[in-house]
């Protein structure tokens, strides 16, 4: 895996190789890791999805000359950013490319019709050099991961090597927002933390904090805000590796949550095979909602709506996942695949907020259930 420092060197080597091939009138070929489920491997000892041997080869010919030209053009922009230390989002890079083309009419054929086109070129470069886009100074918006704790201290190493220290206990009700590149963060705690709870819904995480969760428990609480962003994934990995606290995920009981949210947090995704090592927290447990919780706590659940395209698609995907996804096929994850099977069989779903029905007059009831479940080891 290339690091930030290697990239300019690797890029030059790559371009040199291409140029040499061209000088000899030989067809250059670019190889990129195939990032898809059919090239994903899972080993419970590793804990996350890793790339298999498949590579996508792009040979220079009349069909691929446009793609290659665009990749070299974008690489030049990114290398310039690395050189100057400038950072950009994908959207900004799209406009930077447009600007370059506007000021240099010879580049007109490279013009991107929409952002999807420039995004795919950036992804292609990452797969080719085997690096994160953050390594190319291309950052996503820091979405999700708002973190609360009375005892967590974060030390960030800034680009100029100075250190910024954030004591989360002193932030009041303001959460700490992890960055997209949490590799620069060092974590420590004032006293030993009992656990870290990742809540699917940011709103519910806020409610728990407002009701005093972090005051009563020596824990870290963070909201995932749906499918975890790179920031959330890297942040959880950081918490796991540096603090060695048990991690729990609390979210809805439905196929989408299990496959798209929890699986991505625990083992990464097929689309990001090359960076799952830094962007997954294999020790995170699924605390609930579990199918048995519905009966145990008499939770309100409801059938999957036939016209809810996202849910129907998620169920279909769950069927495929049971057959093809190495994560769900691993016998260590049998508990999770059993939940998927249950969802497919009963076609019902139950939301995390359903815990509020247990005692509607006690705002801390969900907290009590969560803590009780952790104590009793009632999780997958």
């Amino acid at each position, binding site marked *: 895996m290339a690091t930030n420092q290697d990239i300019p060197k690797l890029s030059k080597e790559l*371009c040199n190789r291409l140029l040499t091939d061209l*000088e000899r009138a030989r067809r250059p070929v670019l190889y990129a890791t195939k990032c898809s489920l059919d090239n994903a491997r899972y080993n419970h000892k590793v804990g996350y999805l890793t790339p298999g041997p498949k590579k996508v080869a792009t040979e220079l010919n*009349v069909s691929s000359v*446009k793609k290659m030209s665009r990749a*070299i053009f974008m690489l030049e922009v990114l290398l310039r950013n690395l050189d100057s230390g400038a950072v950009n989002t994908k959207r900004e890079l799209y406009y930077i490319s447009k600007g370059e083309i506007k000021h240099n009419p*010879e580049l007109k054929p*490279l013009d991107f019709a929409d952002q999807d086109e420039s995004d795919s070129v950036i992804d292609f470069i990452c797969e080719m050099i085997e690096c994160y886009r953050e390594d190319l100074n291309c950052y996503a918006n820091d979405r999700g991961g708002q973190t609360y704790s009375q005892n967590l201290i974060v030390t960030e190493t800034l680009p100029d090597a100075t250190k910024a220290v954030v004591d989360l206990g002193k932030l009041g009700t303001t959460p700490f927002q992890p960055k997209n590149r949490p590799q620069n963060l060092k974590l420590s705690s004032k006293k030993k933390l009992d656990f870290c709870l990742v809540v699917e819904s940011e709103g519910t995480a806020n409610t728990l904090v407002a009701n005093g969760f972090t005051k009563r428990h020596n824990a870290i609480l963070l909201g995932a805000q749906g499918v975890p962003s790179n920031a959330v994934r890297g942040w959880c990995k950081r918490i796991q590796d540096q603090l060695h606290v048990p991690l729990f995920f609390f979210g809805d009981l439905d196929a989408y949550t299990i496959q798209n949210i929890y699986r991505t947090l625990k083992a990464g995704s097929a689309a990001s095979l090359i960076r799952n090592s830094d962007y997954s927290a294999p020790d995170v447990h699924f605390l609930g909602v579990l199918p048995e919780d519905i009966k145990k706590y008499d939770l309100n659940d409801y059938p999957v709506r036939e016209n809810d395209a996202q849910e129907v698609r998620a169920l279909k995907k769950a069927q495929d996942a049971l057959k093809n996804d190495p994560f769900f096929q691993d016998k260590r994850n049998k508990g999770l695949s059993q939940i998927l099977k249950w969802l497919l069989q009963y076609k019902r779903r139950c939301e995390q907020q359903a815990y509020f029905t247990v005692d509607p007059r006690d705002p801390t009831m969900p907290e009590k259930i969560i803590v009780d479940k952790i104590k009793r080891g009632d999780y997958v």
Partner: protein
Amino acid sequence: MAKIADSKNQKITTSSTAEYFSKNLQQVGFSSQVKAVLTTLKEAVDNSLDACEDHGILPEVSVTVEKVGQGSLKNSDQIRVRVEDNGPGVETDDLPKVFGEYLASSKFGRGRCSRGQQGIGISAATTWAQLTSAIGARVISKTDKMRKAIACLVEVDIKNNKGVIKDRETIDWDRPSGLSVEFLIDGRIQLNGDAGLLNYLNGTALVNPHLTMHYKLPDLEPNTIERVSTIIPDIPKATEPHPHTMKLGEFIAHSHLFGRVKVNVWLKKGFSRIHEGVLKELVKSGGIKASLLEKSVDSLSEAEFKGLFMAIQNTQLMAPSTKSVLSIGEESLAKSIQRIGAVDFFSVVTRRPTICDFKPVQVEVAVARLEDRSVDGDGPVQVLRFANRVPLQFDKSSCAIVHAITSVNWRAYGLAQPREALPIGPYIVAVSVVSPFIKFKNASKETIDASDELVEEIRRTLIQAGQRLSKHIRREVKANELEERMKHIEQFCPILVSGLCRITNATEARKKRAEDGLVKLLGRDARVTEKELKEAHKVLQAQTAEKQLALPLHPTAQ
């Protein structure tokens, strides 16, 4: 109690067929003013074409539709619809029956692929004229036996369902035989769109290659569509009814046509697909006594009829014959499609006749791309539907033909298509269903009932047409792609090499070598590309010159 007493005092009356239809003209195509004009024209033209075909005459029909004043109905115009033909004409005695009597038909229940079937349409048009303009149909008729033509006014005696002739006179007419019928009706003229008169006239021309039609419509120059075929369609004779398509009552009624003949003779002569072998089977496994077959038909009791009917229903019979259907044929359709506008290319398919829902059916399809792409290029394709060679112009969405078109994946053939909708583009998709027993959804024959079997048969025909069409579209797409590729080489090579050189800080000499190498490399591709492009162009030019995309895969089957 009062209610019961009231109902007991109510008089039960009977009314004539004409009375029924005069109060329910919406059921036979007069539900709006636009439809009234189109239906009137359609009924007159259908009658002309049927008559010409029956008498082996190449039809030449003149149509005039014009606005003559304000109509008596609210927001309506008074319209004159006149249709003249060179057909056999109608004998004087038959004129009141044809134009003024409901259910008086020479075709009812005969099981032939004629346009008209029941004898309702033209009488309904006369009734509409009578109700809205207080004047019936003005007719001029001349048969080849008449020295002079007869001109008269035919009206419907609604109370008695009889036609009445008025103002009768004899006149000179410059043709050996023919018929002219003129209606003054209230309505509104719509020329364009699905329900437009032009759509009807073009559609009629498409499926009747042997027709020459002169038409004069408001705001348009008089026009003539010349015939492209001199072959008069030979409408196959009707076959005897198939017993599996009948109900018990029909079965018994059918026996009355035969009088005093033996049952076995009646069964063999009166039905298709019943022969000696079937009769033996009836005796052997159907539980029918051999003596019953020797009895006279008129002596059978109701129970015996029922037993015989049930036994036949339970016996395996060959499917009905498909000989009674009539096709336009791929060749004629191919010639005819070029009369409806300038088309780039097209494909036509005539399927073999087959059995759908126990009735013989033949489906033909023509798909054409219009040369003028600006005409609704982004809208859905123009669908022309035909049942027994009559255009269907209303209630498109529930028609079997539209169901079949939307069920085909046109994207596979190079056409854009939203999910479960008609494909998009400057195309005409014409589908003709011919059968002696078309199942319409209503008496006005606007929509074909979408039975699964029929939809599947139409779908298969469309798929065949689509496959033929796609060959052309793919070639065209390929040519475009190849052209695009050539452009790629010229555009991207210098950009790629410059980018690589900037990143590697390469020298000018290296840059030059790389450019030469790349040109050499892609030059090989370019030469291959150029060759492929030339070939693709050659094929396209040849096809455009021929204007015929694909030749029939097999000769038209009968």
